[in-house]
């Protein structure tokens, strides 16, 4: 294949994939057939174009080849299910060399496809995935990688969504006028979410995620072309272009985040800024102003300023006030506070931030704490600033942001003399992070909540990826199952009582993606591991973990423990501190006074118990013995663990105590006591979740888990 033809096919893929798929879906009603035949057409182009040359209208050529392929396949399977009528619908032009039809209607097909993919009756994460698959042509594996979920999970998600489209008769059309405003908003939200997924990552991370930005811009450009009378579509495209125009300046050579004030504005993409400004002016002139146009107008204020010092903060604060009226949200208010601080001084901004700090949904939001920290720093209130920087650090998941915050923290605590000599009169996080804050829409997170554990009860956690190594080892009367995933510094995950390693299905992919080696161990008697007749003891389980470490020749590992897994981890840290880099202690007690009494039947606990019983039957070497097993575990929990404050005071490894706001078993005072008693321990309260946070809100849990792992595994 000559490079020229290859480039032409790649170009055609980006430009034409969505069109070809969309028109085939219309004529066949079969999404899988449409995708497969389009794929075939591109393969055919790769074979033929090097010799025959690139056709004058590559899109029409591809459409015809794909259509012929679909026709062939439908004819062959006609006897099974396909109606003859559908085949005749397809049977128009057939000669790819003469494929110069004007393609009328093809654009409408793409618009139809967008509205169907973004239909509100589909779950949000499926809308995003379908859009990437059907319109942008990403493969299931690529989409899974971009969203850090196992490929099987993504495949299931896509299959389910397509099935619902067919079974519930979600229409394939542009909605009628009375539905249009609401539905357009839905499409825009999906596109912006795509963009943010790509934009919020730091340089050097998964490149596929950065591609999401270009895909989102490409799709938005198509939408603007298809719906020229939608000022918000133009507003969204302008907003994306303005943010994207800073991409070369926002990260420096070492991968560090560069604040807006310190960015080399010469590196901003002027062509993108010009395109955005033109779009925005035209949109605003319609007088139908919406949130995307306002956000783009704010970004344009930054683009207008030739240097940071000349930024028009009064104008920006005014735009935020307007935005807060059309899109009331605490995140917008936080941005307004930042702009007010720039326009009227840090004290005015801090007053607004303090009011927001009382909003429950913002408590776990790292930018709230980062903003508060910065305002306090500028007011000279250094100890309070340091406290807020620490909270922000514990909550953020991005490497570049962590380094940035750590530099600021060092500056306010005086740990690093060099850090104090920052350039510029306002080495401020907050004004520079405006663009980031804007980019976050509280509603539109791709997080699937499973707060009530219905999904877990029905399906279990997502399947684990393929293990790098897996095996059993004999130890102290039991056969212990273990497995490792990925490469890098080792992180051991220890599951809770009655559970097994598969409960970590949401965490293992996140660890692999961040460059760690995840090690899973089924505690004795649990999952695939066996036990003997002796009663259970946490100390014995800790010695099993140590034996696996020896078998794998792992010198030292970070341990993430959940419930029983947490006390096993802490006991190991007491007994073999040299082998434990740190303990992430989630949801457990260290003496019997720390647990709550469960007095009534609780549907969440029942669902979890039911899932454990099912998994036990499927995994255990003694599948029929769940009841005596559960009884033996209950017996252990009633009296163990039993460590006092003196024991805790002797812990010498870094520990973070993590407690869910609504934990069913563990008292919050106990978690606070643990954090107080263990030297240097941190305490993190997870808002909104219960004892099953890793399943309920995996993104939230993974963020703090990764932050911890990063801290202890240098």
């Amino acid at each position, binding site marked *: 294949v000559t490079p020229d033809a290859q480039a032409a096919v790649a170009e055609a893929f980006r430009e034409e994939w969505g069109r070809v798929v969309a028109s085939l879906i219309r004529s066949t009603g079969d999404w899988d057939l449409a995708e497969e035949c389009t794929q075939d057409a591109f393969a055919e182009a790769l074979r033929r174009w090097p010799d025959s040359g690139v056709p004058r209208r590559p899109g029409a050529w591809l459409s015809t080849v794909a259509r012929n392929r679909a026709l062939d396949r439908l004819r062959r399977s006609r006897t099974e299910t396909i109606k003859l009528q559908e085949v005749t619908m397809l049977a128009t032009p057939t000669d790819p060399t003469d494929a110069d039809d004007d393609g009328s209607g093809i654009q409408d097909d793409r618009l139809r496809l967008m509205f169907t993919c973004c239909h509100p009756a589909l779950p949000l994460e499926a809308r995003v995935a379908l859009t990437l698959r059907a319109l942008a042509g990403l493969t299931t594996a690529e989409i899974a990688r971009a969203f850090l979920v196992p490929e099987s999970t993504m495949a299931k998600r896509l299959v389910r969504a397509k099935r619902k489209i067919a079974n519930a*008769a979600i*229409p394939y059309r542009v909605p009628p006028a009375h539905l249009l405003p609401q539905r357009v908003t839905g499409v825009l939200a999906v596109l912006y979410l795509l963009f943010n997924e790509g934009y919020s990552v730091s340089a050097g991370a998964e490149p596929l995620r950065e591609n999401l930005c270009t895909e989102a811009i490409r799709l938005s450009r198509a939408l603007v072309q298809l719906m020229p009378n939608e000022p918000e579509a133009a507003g969204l495209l302008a907003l994306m272009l303005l943010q994207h125009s800073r991409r070369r300046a926002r990260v420096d050579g070492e991968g560090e985040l560069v604040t807006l004030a310190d960015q080399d504005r010469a590196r901003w993409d002027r062509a993108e800024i010009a395109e955005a400004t033109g779009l925005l002016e035209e949109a605003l002139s319609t007088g139908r102003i919406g949130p995307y146009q306002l956000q783009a107008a704010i970004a344009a204020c930054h683009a207008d300023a030739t240097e940071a010092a000349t930024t028009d903060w009064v104008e920006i604060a005014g735009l935020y006030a307007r935005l807060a009226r059309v899109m009331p949200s605490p995140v917008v208010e936080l941005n307004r506070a930042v702009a007010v601080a720039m326009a009227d001084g840090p004290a005015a901004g801090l007053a607004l931030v303090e009011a927001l700090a009382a909003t429950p949904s913002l408590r776990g939001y790292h930018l709230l704490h980062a903003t508060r920290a910065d305002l306090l720093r500028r007011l000279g209130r250094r100890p309070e600033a340091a406290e807020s920087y620490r909270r922000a650090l514990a909550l953020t998941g991005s490497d570049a942001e962590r380094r940035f915050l750590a530099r600021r923290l060092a500056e306010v605590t005086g740990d690093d003399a060099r850090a104090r000599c920052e350039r510029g009169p306002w080495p401020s996080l907050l004004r520079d992070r405006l663009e980031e804050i804007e980019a976050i829409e509280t509603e539109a997170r791709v997080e699937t909540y499973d707060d009530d554990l219905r999904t877990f009860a029905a399906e279990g956690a997502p399947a684990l990826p393929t293990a790098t190594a897996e095996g059993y080892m004999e130890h102290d009367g039991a056969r212990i199952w273990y497995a490792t995933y990925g490469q890098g510094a080792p992180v051991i995950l220890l599951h809770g009582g009655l559970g097994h390693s598969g409960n970590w299905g949401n965490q293992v992919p996140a660890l692999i993606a961040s460059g760690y080696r995840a090690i899973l161990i089924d505690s004795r008697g649990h999952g695939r591991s066996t036990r003997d007749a002796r009663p259970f003891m946490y100390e014995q389980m800790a010695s099993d973990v140590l034996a696996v470490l020896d078998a794998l020749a792992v010198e030292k590992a970070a341990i993430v423990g959940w419930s029983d897994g947490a006390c096993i981890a802490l006991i190991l840290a007491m007994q073999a501190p040299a082998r434990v880099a740190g303990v992430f202690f989630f949801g457990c007690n260290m003496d019997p006074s720390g647990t709550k009494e469960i007095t009534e039947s609780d549907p969440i606990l029942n669902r979890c118990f039911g899932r454990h019983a099912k998994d036990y039957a499927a995994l255990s070497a003694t599948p029929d013995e769940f009841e005596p097993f559960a009884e033996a575990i209950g017996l252990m929990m009633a009296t163990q663990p039993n460590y006092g404050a003196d024991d805790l005071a002797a812990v010498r490894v870094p520990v973070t105590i993590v407690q869910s706001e609504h934990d069913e078993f563990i008292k919050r005072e106990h978690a606070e006591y643990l954090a107080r008693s263990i030297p240097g321990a941190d305490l993190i309260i997870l808002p909104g979740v219960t004892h099953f946070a890793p399943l309920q809100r995996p993104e939230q849990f993974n963020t703090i888990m990764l932050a911890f792992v990063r801290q202890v595994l240098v």
Partner: protein
Amino acid sequence: MKYLLMICADESVELTPEERAAVGSDTDSWVTEMDARGVRLQGDRLRPVSDATSVRVRDTEVLIADGPFAETKEQIAGYDIIECADLDEAIEVTARHPVARFGVIEVRPFWLL
């Protein structure tokens, strides 16, 4: 396309006599309109769950229990079967049902064989 509408409401919520009358007459107008449009095929109101009986057969034994099969806040208070062009039309029809304003209506496509 045929859909079942499960009209669900919280039985413990007490409506005032005026509210109850309004829901009643609004439902009547909804039924009249949807019948005239040819959308609604049939439907009815159900007695509350205090009148429900749940039946299971396990190992040939018939197990009978008083009450609904699921203890949820919202209970099925009635149903309608509608025939629509697509889900958008079904949503439009459902959104105009008066119970949607305070309860919830589940729209389920029929399993077409």
